[in-house]
């Protein structure tokens, strides 16, 4: 197997999403709907995730849009005897920073501001490069995808912080904390980018390499 890489799809073999079995697929109903099933677990088979790029783009663009209110609107509304205060994600970070918890300020900054933004940029890069059938650094792009997949969930951090604070700080007129409208937008960013990454098929990164080589279908 030296030299030309052989992929399952190039040999008309399906790799099952559910059970991992490699097969030619069992045709049920003799090509009626063209749907192919796995002979072991009977899940539907595809060479690549269907409409991967289009779905991934749609979810990503929606996430870009939600990223704006998520950062501009208040995520936490505090009211106390001394008046009320609206906190955005950034002002929450600054509060932690100035109250001496620089380490936690850093964690929240990375999880809530850096990670979502880098995820959006990374997914854009992956989608554009796949659409242009780029053969540039496939291994590095696959690694980038793995980072995006791994890191995505950590952006939920701020949502959980607000949840605990809003549940506990309910002492009548002394101090009350409520979740602000940015919480919904922020939750939407996290969920949408996660769905976008799940729809993306990393095998598309490697497919252009296949077609590059002459004499190989």
């Amino acid at each position, binding site marked *: 197997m030296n030299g030309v890489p052989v992929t399952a799809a190039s040999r008309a073999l399906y790799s099952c999403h559910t059970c991992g079995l490699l097969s030619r697929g069992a045709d049920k109903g003799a090509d009626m709907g063209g749907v192919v099933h796995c002979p072991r677990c009977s899940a539907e088979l595809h060479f690549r995730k269907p409409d991967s790029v289009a779905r991934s783009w749609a979810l990503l663009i929606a996430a870009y849009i939600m990223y704006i209110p998520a950062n501009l609107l208040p995520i936490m509304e505090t009211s106390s005897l001394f008046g009320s205060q609206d906190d955005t994600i950034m002002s929450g970070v600054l509060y932690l920073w100035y109250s001496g918890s620089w380490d936690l300020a850093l964690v929240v900054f990375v999880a809530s501001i850096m990670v979502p933004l880098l995820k959006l940029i990374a997914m854009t890069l992956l989608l554009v490069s796949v659409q242009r059938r780029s053969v540039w650094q496939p291994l590095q792009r696959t690694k980038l995808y793995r980072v995006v997949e791994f890191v995505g969930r950590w952006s939920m951090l701020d949502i959980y912080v607000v949840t605990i604070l809003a549940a*506990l700080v309910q002492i009548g007129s002394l101090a009350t904390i409520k979740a602000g409208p940015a919480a919904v937008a922020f*939750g939407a960013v996290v969920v949408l980018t996660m769905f976008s990454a799940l729809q993306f098929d990393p095998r598309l990164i490697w497919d252009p390499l296949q077609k590059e080589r002459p004499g190989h279908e």
Partner: protein
Amino acid sequence: MTASAPLIACHECDLLQREIALPPGEVVLCGRCGAELYRSAHSTLDKPLAFLLTAAVVLTVANVYPIVGLEIQGSGNATTLFGAAYALWHQGMPPIAVLVFLTTFLVPAVELAIMGYILLSLKYGRRPAGMTLLMRALQHVNPWGMLEVFMLGVIVALVKLTHYGTVIPDMALWAFGILTLLLAATASSFDIRDVWDRVEALPCREVDE
């Protein structure tokens, strides 16, 4: 292509490769993109089952007891996970309440239930009914369990709470910490490939539609 070893396709770059036999505890990576192809199968189902049952007990404890309490000038207040989600719901934030409830309780609970059902069926030599559906559900639900993120969120919240009054960490805080580790242990000892191999090896195969 004359070798007798079965072929396997990398799920991240689709490269076809020949399987190799593995000593216990080893992992096979894709030769081209480095994705994990498979790991050596566990000799018994008892290890994942043990982790799983412990996790189920700790999950119950974590949701029955309060996570943290707050005392401000004599008046106290404590919250469980359900309490926190409930409070959000009534502050006009139902989407966030649902999101929190799903990612910290429902998803881990469903995962444990499905894995437990599959493992117990296999242990008693039966093919689990609806196996395909359950395995697919497991795959779809898995990315949405976020207990470890929740743990970090609680820690950040504790620091912020000290600004308002006396913070009293409660039973469920420790339970959630342990649960995070137990879930990781369960997930890493529950091997999808091994489970399918065991299902295939069962004497009588019924096809479930």
